[in-house]
């Protein structure tokens, strides 16, 4: 039902239940504001959004109200342009500017500053206040965020985000009266994993991006492209910005179904590997096995490659979950389907395949983050999701508030009325159950936590399924506590409207996936609509898993047979995937070894022929996220000849090898279309993303703003005649400031700007309503859908309960948001946050061994011996150790596994 409101004499049909400010923004009416944030609601703190409200048509006087606190109601009459309201807003800005420093030229927010925009919009031009300005000392907040407290206008958005929305606890508003201070109790790293969002949430330059500061560029000078975060399986949408050939920053790109307004710090600050000195820029060849890799001129390379293809009958291709679908597909075409391997260990391969099979089966829907936010019960099995899929954790944190919201709605408090809602709901939380081997960063919102081995967690899951449905396989030998907990979870799940089960493959246990599937199936049989989210580790784990191909171990087995073969490795450091000895022998046996990658790693060092390829910033490609949503990223760095996209390199290899029909591939679209034609799982992608011929009124979509500067000077030191802008025939975007002024389709939005709104807040005008979907639908297409008719056969529990043995421990993996992912760890700011490899152990057990916090310990696992730091963590049960996984310097270890530990005397 729509209602009618009158704004400045014009009637509009609007949706009820919103506040007036949201409504105006939806209608495209400019109402200045600060403290309202669509994802966080209104608190009415800044008083800038004042408008005039009239009682009825006869009321000529009206009264000033805050539009963000005013519900829209049928027949509402308001005026935004009213003189008194306008003057009121100008006065508010003038008041805020009294203490505002004269900083814009050296302020990183300048040019995309919400305060600048609002000051111009309200018409406050000249400073009349002649007294002294208040000043503050700043804090060092770590490698991500710069703090310049003088610029604060006390809108309270930062604390509301950091504490209320993201659950941080080391940040607060301090002080009193006009001395309030937004920061930590003392200098130190902001601990919350979402601290980077302060950059966008704060309407001024108090919090700015420290990594951008190191190579600062104004917003208007950036060349931008719609991109994707490649640092985990969530697939958040980003805007990547380039200047002078380097990647300068990552900003949030709104996607209502995925990341909304936010990003995690790994995604925002993990981009700098693109500019790393260790980038592979030139092709390199090893003439003989005992020589080093050497850079090669193109002619020699071609000869070497043709020789290689002439002399080698069989090629093994190893794909990668961090490469795009198209690159993997091209490789499988080059080597043939039977010779294409997924480049992940057999164990991971099995886990990914299991997860996909369960989702494909159609029992339960894999939820988007937006759907997770709406959940009323969440059960997390065996994952520390803040470390493995950070934005999913942020979504779960929002879900926890739903019970409180329900209670407030019942008492008539609007959903957007944030402060009232929080006061009313107090500590009321939706039930979140977290079962994991040790403490997680979401424990503060958990109804109950359960700490046990992955086997026991899976057994708990099976037990819940069994209690929900008596046909589900029963679990024997549960103790009282476990039964009690299972009963409690079952009781809550049974009545849930939107139950969400989250698990993943990070704990290395297929049972966990089976248990989750059983619960989902049991709920479905109960007539409910369960949502089932599987967290996979990498940006394209899901996409690669949907393609045919065996595991890395199978490739190794093949070469063990003694058959000689050449090896092509696509963007994959195999030493992170399997035992060093195995990979050594694989690389030894295959000849030649061709590696395509962008950063030097252990595998590239072993290549016979090393070919440079583009990173995500230099390529176009499709990735499939945990949800099964295919999304596309576009290149932002102009081609400089050094880094070809992976699929282009592979196409060129095809041209050198036998007659492949694929050599016809000219543009990205050609390979993408060939893929969607040949692989039915991807057929939905076809035609979804605008192709290279896409034009709006005959024009491409521009990557640069109209105010892009320096065109005739940037390369004038090399040649005073400026070159023509780089061509980009393969994409609908242009490396140019000239292009269509229309709003592009949602998947092609390269930056946000509308007249008068230079800041990131301009994005609200690209949405159908604040916090809604992008106009034209949220980008990405879901490849996997559940269906009501589909059912699953219950899986049988196989895991036996874990029994600790004296002198031996079960070692389970512990992931870290900073460090466990390969590429972000190679970025400067993230690298500064990486811990040294550690092992988590219970205090009691450590004491028995004579170990203290920070002691070095020696861990013997299978035939491996590693030395790591001991970290006392009382959340981990006796008999279990949590070993940091994926951190630089950690070898590949198959976990979970049984290990022995000795404390090294220092």
């Amino acid at each position, binding site marked *: 039902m729509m209602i009618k409101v009158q704004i400045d004499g014009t009637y509009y049909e609007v949706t009820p239940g919103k506040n007036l400010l949201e409504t105006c923004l939806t209608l495209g009416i400019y109402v200045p504001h600060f403290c309202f944030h669509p994802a966080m609601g209104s608190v009415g703190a800044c008083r800038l959004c004042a408008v005039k409200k009239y009682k009825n048509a006869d009321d000529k006087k009206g009264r000033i109200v805050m539009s963000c606190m005013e519900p829209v109601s049928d027949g509402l009459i308001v005026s935004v342009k009213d003189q008194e309201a306008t003057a009121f807003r100008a006065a508010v800005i003038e008041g805020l500017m009294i203490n505002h420093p004269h900083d814009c030229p050296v302020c990183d927010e300048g040019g995309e500053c919400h305060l600048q925009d609002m000051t111009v919009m309200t018409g406050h031009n000249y400073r009349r206040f002649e*007294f002294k300005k208040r000043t503050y000392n700043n804090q060092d907040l770590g490698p991500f965020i710069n703090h310049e407290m003088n610029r604060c206008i006390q809108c309270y958005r930062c604390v509301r985000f950091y504490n209320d929305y993201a659950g941080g606890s080391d940040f607060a508003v301090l002080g009193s009266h006009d001395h309030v201070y937004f920061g930590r109790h003392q200098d130190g790293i902001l601990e919350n994993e979402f601290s980077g969002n302060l950059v966008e949430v704060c309407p001024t330059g108090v919090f700015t991006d420290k990594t951008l500061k190191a190579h600062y560029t104004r917003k208007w000078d950036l060349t931008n492209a719609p991109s994707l975060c490649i640092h985990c399986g969530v697939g958040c949408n980003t805007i990547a910005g380039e200047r002078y050939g380097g990647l300068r920053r990552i900003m949030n790109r709104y996607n209502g179904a995925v990341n909304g307004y936010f990003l995690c710090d790994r995604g925002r600050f993990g981009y700098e590997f693109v500019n790393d000195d260790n980038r592979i820029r030139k092709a390199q060849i090893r003439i003989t096995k005992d020589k080093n890799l050497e850079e090669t001129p193109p002619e020699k390379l071609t000869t070497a490659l043709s020789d290689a293809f002439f002399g080698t009958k069989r090629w093994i291709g190893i794909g990668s979950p961090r490469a795009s679908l198209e690159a993997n597909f091209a490789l499988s075409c080059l080597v043939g389907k039977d010779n294409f391997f997924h480049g992940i260990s057999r164990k991971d391969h099995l886990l990914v395949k299991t997860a996909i099979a369960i989702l494909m089966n159609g029992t339960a829907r894999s939820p988007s983050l937006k759907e997770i936010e709406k959940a009323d019960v969440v059960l997390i099995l065996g994952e520390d999701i803040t470390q493995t899929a950070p934005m999913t954790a942020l979504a779960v944190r929002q879900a926890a508030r739903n019970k409180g919201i329900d209670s407030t709605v019942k008492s008539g408090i609007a959903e957007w009325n944030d402060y009232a809602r929080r006061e009313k709901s107090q500590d009321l939380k939706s039930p979140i159950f977290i079962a994991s081997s040790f403490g997680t960063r979401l424990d503060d919102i958990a109804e109950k936590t359960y700490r046990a081995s992955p086997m026991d967690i899976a057994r708990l899951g099976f037990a819940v399924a069994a209690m929900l449905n008596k046909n589900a396989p029963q679990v024997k030998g549960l103790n009282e506590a476990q039964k009690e907990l299972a009963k409690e979870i079952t009781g809550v799940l049974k009545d849930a409207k939107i139950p969400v089960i989250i698990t993943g493959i990070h704990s290395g246990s297929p049972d966990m996936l089976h248990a989750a599937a059983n619960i989902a199936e049991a709920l479905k049989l109960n007539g409910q609509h369960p949502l089932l989210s599987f967290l996979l580790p990498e940006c394209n784990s899901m996409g690669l898993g949907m393609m045919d191909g065996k595991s890395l171990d199978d490739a190794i087995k093949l070469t063990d047979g003694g058959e000689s073969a050449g090896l092509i490795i696509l963007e994959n450091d195999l030493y992170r995937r399997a035992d060093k000895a195995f990979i050594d022998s694989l690389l030894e046996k295959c000849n030649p070894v061709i590696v395509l990658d962008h950063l030097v790693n252990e595998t590239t060092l072993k290549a016979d022929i090393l070919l440079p390829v583009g990173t995500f910033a230099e390529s176009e490609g499709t990735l499939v996220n945990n949800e099964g949503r295919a999304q596309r990223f576009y290149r932002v760095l102009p081609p400089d000849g050094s880094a070809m996209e992976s699929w282009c390199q592979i196409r060129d290899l095809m041209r050198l090898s036998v007659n492949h029909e694929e050599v016809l591939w000219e543009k990205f679209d050609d390979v993408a279309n060939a893929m969607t034609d040949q692989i039915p799982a991807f057929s939905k992608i076809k035609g979804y993303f605008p192709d290279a011929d896409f034009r709006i009124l005959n024009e491409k979509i521009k990557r640069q703003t109209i105010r892009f500067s*320096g065109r005739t*000077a940037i390369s004038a030191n090399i040649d005073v005649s400026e070159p023509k802008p780089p061509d980009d025939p393969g994409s609908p975007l242009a490396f140019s400031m000239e292009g269509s002024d229309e709003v592009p389709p949602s998947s092609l939005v390269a930056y946000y700007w509308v007249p008068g709104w230079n800041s990131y807040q301009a994005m609200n005008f690209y949405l159908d309503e604040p916090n809604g979907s992008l106009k034209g639908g949220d980008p990405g297409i879901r490849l996997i859908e559940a269906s009501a008719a589909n059912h699953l056969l219950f899986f049988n529990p196989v895991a036996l309960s874990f029994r600790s043995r004296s002198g031996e421990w079960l070692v389970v993996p512990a992931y870290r948001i900073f460090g466990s992912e390969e590429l972000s760890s190679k970025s400067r700011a993230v690298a500064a946050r990486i811990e040294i490899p550690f092992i988590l152990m219970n205090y009691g057990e450590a004491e028995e061994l004579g170990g203290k916090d920070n002691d070095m310990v020696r861990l013997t696992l299978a035939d491996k011996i590693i030395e790591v730091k001991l970290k006392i963590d009382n959340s981990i049960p006796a008999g279990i150790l949590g070993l940091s996984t994926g951190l630089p310097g950690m070898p590949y270890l198959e976990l979970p596994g049984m290990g022995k530990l000795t404390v090294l005397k220092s």
Partner: protein
Amino acid sequence: MFSILRSLWYTFLHAFHKRETILYPEEKPYLPPRYRGRIILSRDPDGIERCVACYLCAAACPVDCISLQAIEGENGRRYPAFFRINFSRCIFCGYCEEACPTYAIQLTPDFEMGEYNRQNLVYEKEHLLISGEGKYHGYDFYKVAGIDAGVKEKGEGANEQPPVDVKSLMP
């Protein structure tokens, strides 16, 4: 017919007017300080580069012939790592000077910039930076800005109160 003759007559009379043409280059014309010629980058009263690399001149330039990159010194003072003006494109409109918040970039009355080779019209920072304050004396941006940048302590700038003691509850 008459008007043509009248025009001819007036034109002819010009032959007896005072000459405006001077014998340049032997004789130099007077150009006022506000003349818009060769662009320079000036220094603060204390002799440090004035430009704070804010990119405003580059944004204001209608032919986009200014390009620079900001970089920061140890204590956060920002300056251009490189600063390039392509004078073969510059139209000497003076918008850059107008946009500059620090008086760093200034146009001067020097117009003698002819080159045989166009490439030589590309000026880098070393060609632009002079050792004085130029037309505007006494202005030091960092003294009036809110950031300290190693130039002053917090609260010691012009028109600033000492930093707030957050722990104090006094009014």
